[in-house]
C-alpha cells in the first residue's frame, strides 16, 4: 500500500523516499533505480565536476524516470555554469545544500524545476522559503557527510512548525528503515531522504570496500568533525562539519586539528595517496549514525520496498520490534 503524503503528490511519485545526492557516488544508476522503484533519486552533483555531470545527467535523462540533481551551494557559486548543464537535462528538481540558495533560485524555477533546499537551522529554513523553496529538507546531525549540530528529533519538528504547511518537509539524518520513515511522519515530515542506506546498495558508485565497512559498522562507529575536510585541503564554511566512519586517521587527528592545519600539505599528500589506494584506515567513508541499522548491500529497489512495507506495518499499529517484523 503506497504511503501518500504532500511530498508524493508534489513530486508525482509513489513513495516518500528520496536518495541523497552523495557527491559523485550517487550517479544515474542509483538515482534511476530509486525512481524506478517509486521513490525519487537525486544525482550527487556535489562540488561540481563538469565531465561527471554531463555523463550522469545524460544517463539519467535516458532512463525516462523523474530525477533530481543536488549541488553544494557554496561550491556551485564558483562554477555557476554547471547549473545550466544540470537544467538542460530537464530534472524534476534541483537540490541545494550548504549555502544561500537565493543566487540560483530564479534560474532553477524559471527552467521549470522544483527547488529543494536542505537546511540545518531555522534561519536557513527562513532563507530557503524566502528564496522560493518548494521543499525543505531538515537534516539532523546524525546524517552522514556534511551537516551541522542539531539532532533529527529536534530539527525536524522545528522546521515543520516553521514551514507551517506551506511546503512539504523531508527529514534526513539517521534514517535507514521503515521505523525511521514512520517516526519522521509522526514528527510531521512528509518524507525522508536517505544517504548511507543507499550507499550500501548495488547501484551506488561507491567502492565495494566502503560498502562493506558500512555493513560491518556498529553503534557509535561514526563521528562528526573537520579532520577529513582539513586532510583534503578542503575548508568548509561554518557551521558545517562532516560525519564519517571512525578510522585510524580520524583517531590520530581528532583533538589535534591545529597540528593538522600546520602540517596540512604533507597530510593532504598522504591522504590523497590513501584514497587512491582505497586505504580506508586513512581515507574517509562518509556515513551517518544509521550505519548500525545497515547489514547488507541489496538492490536499491529492494531497499525502497523494505522501507515502505516496514513503515506500513508500523503505521498499521503492529508491534514494531525488528523481531516481530522478522517473525
Amino acid at each position, binding site marked *: 500500500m503506497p504511503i501518500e503524503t504532500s511530498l508524493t503528490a508534489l513530486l508525482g511519485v509513489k513513495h516518500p523516499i528520496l536518495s541523497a545526492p552523495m557527491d559523485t557516488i550517487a550517479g544515474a544508476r542509483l538515482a534511476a533505480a530509486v525512481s524506478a522503484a517509486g521513490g525519487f533519486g537525486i544525482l550527487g552533483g556535489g562540488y561540481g565536476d563538469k565531465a561527471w555531470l554531463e555523463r550522469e545527467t545524460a544517463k539519467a535523462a535516458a532512463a525516462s524516470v523523474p530525477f533530481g540533481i543536488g549541488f553544494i551551494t557554496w561550491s556551485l557559486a564558483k562554477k555557476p555554469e554547471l547549473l545550466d548543464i544540470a537544467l538542460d537535462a530537464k530534472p524534476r528538481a534541483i537540490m541545494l545544500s550548504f549555502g544561500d540558495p537565493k543566487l540560483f533560485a530564479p534560474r532553477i524555477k524559471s527552467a521549470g524545476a522544483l527547488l529543494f533546499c536542505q537546511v540545518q537551522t531555522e534561519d536557513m529554513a527562513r532563507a530557503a522559503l524566502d528564496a522560493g523553496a518548494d521543499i525543505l529538507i531538515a537534516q539532523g546531525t546524525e546524517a552522514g557527510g556534511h551537516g551541522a549540530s542539531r539532532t533529527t*528529533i*529536534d530539527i525536524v*519538528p522545528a522546521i515543520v512548525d516553521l514551514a507551517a504547511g506551506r511546503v512539504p518537509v523531508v527529514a534526513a539524518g539517521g534514517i535507514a528503515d521503515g521505523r525511521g520513515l514512520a*517516526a519522521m511522519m509522526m514528527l510531521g515530515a512528509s518524507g525522508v531522504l536517505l544517504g548511507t542506506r543507499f550507499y550500501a546498495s548495488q547501484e551506488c558508485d561507491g567502492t565495494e570496500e566502503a560498502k562493506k565497512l558500512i555493513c560491518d559498522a556498529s553503534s557509535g562507529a561514526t563521528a562528526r568533525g573537520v579532520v577529513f575536510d582539513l586532510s583534503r585541503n578542503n575548508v568548509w564554511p561554518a557551521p558545517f562539519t562532516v560525519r564519517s566512519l571512525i578510522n585510524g586517521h580520524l583517531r590520530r587527528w581528532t583533538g589535534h586539528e591545529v597540528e593538522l592545519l600546520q602540517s596540512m600539505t604533507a597530510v593532504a599528500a598522504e591522504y590523497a595517496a590513501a584514497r587512491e589506494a582505497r586505504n580506508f584506515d586513512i581515507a574517509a567513508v562518509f556515513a551517518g549514525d544509521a550505519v548500525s541499522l545497515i547489514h547488507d548491500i541489496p538492490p536499491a529497489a529492494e531497499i525502497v520496498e523494505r522501507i515502505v512495507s516496514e513503515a506500513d506495518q508500523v*503505521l498499521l499499529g503492529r508491534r514494531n520490534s525488528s523481531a516481530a517484523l522478522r517473525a
Partner: protein
Amino acid sequence: MWPDRRIIELFKTEFPIVLAPMAGVMDAELVIAAAQGGALGSLPCAMITAEKAREQINIVRQRVTAPINLNFFCHTPVAADPAREAGWKKHLEGYHAELGLDPGAPVSAANRAPFDAAMCAAVEELKPEVVSFHFGLPDQALLKRVKAAGCLVMGSATIVREAVWLEESGADIIIAQGAEAGGHRGMFLTENIAEQPGTFALVPQVVDAVKVPVIAAGGIADGRGIAAAFALGAAGVQIGTAYLRCPESKVIAPARVALAQAGDDSTVITNVMTGRPARGVANRVMREVGPISAHAPAFPHAATALGPLKVAAEKLGKVDFTNLWAGQAVRMGREMPAAELTRALAAAALARMSALGR
C-alpha cells in the same frame, strides 16, 4: 490505542509515560501530580537520605494509589582529592570575591551518594513498584534484594553496549537515553560523549539489541515526539524537561525564567557543575569555566566548591551557579499543571498515531 502495551501492563499506569527523576528540582508533589495524570512518577533519591525517601514516599502513598518509581545513582564513589578540590576552588576564587564569600570557609560536601544497603532496606520496606538506576546497576547482591522485593528494575543506556549489559545484568526495562536528554548522561561503559547517539538513532538500535521493553528518553516533549518514539520501537517514553516549568516542580523562580527564555541552542553538555557530563541550559559558570573543564574534580566533588556560590547568587536572583539541567527540547516546556500536561501529551500522541495510522 497505544501500539505497544507492554509498559502499561508492566507498570499498571494509564499511559506509557514516565516522569523523569530530576534530583534537586522536584519532590513528592510533582510525582503525585504526574501520577494523577496517568504517568509513572519517579522520585529522585540520589540527593536525599533513606529517611527523607521514606517520608516522601509516604506522602505520595497517602495521596495517590498509583505505582511509583524510586530512582538512585549507582556510580562508583571516588574519595575527594583535597589537592584537586583546592585547585578547583582556586579556579573559582574570582567568583567568591565577587560575591563577598570567604573561599576558605568550610563547605559541606556534595551529597550524591550511590545506592547502598541502607537505601536497599528502605526499598524492601517501601516496595515501590519500580526502581530505576542511573550510571549502571548496583552490585548483584543489592540488585537481587530489590528484585526480591517485587520491584521492576529499569536502567539507563547511552549506547547499545550499555543496553546489552543492563539486560544481561537483570534489568527488566531499558531506558535508551539519547544525547538530547537533560541532566546527567547515564553512561557507565563509555566516557566518550561523541560516541553517544541521539535518541532517533539510539532507540531502534537498542530495540534490535535487547528483548526487554525499551523506553525512549531525550528530546521528547510533545505528542509528535512520543508518537515517533513508538514508531521507532519504543514501548514507552521518559520525559523530564517538559515538566520543569509545572507549578508542582521545585524549580526556583529565576531558573524558571532562564528555562522559559532558553532557545534551541541554549543547552550544552558540561562537567563543571558536578564533575560528570550533564546537559543543561548554559549558565555563567558553565560558559566561563567550561562547558568542559579539565580542572573539575571527580563526581560529585566539583559541586562542593560551587555550593556556597550557588546559594549566594540565588539570593540575588541569579542562576549563575545553579544546575539548570534541561534537554534539547527545553523550548517545548509548558507552564501547566503536571496532571494536565501528562494527559495533554498522551492525547496528542494518540491523536497523531491514529491520524497517520491505517
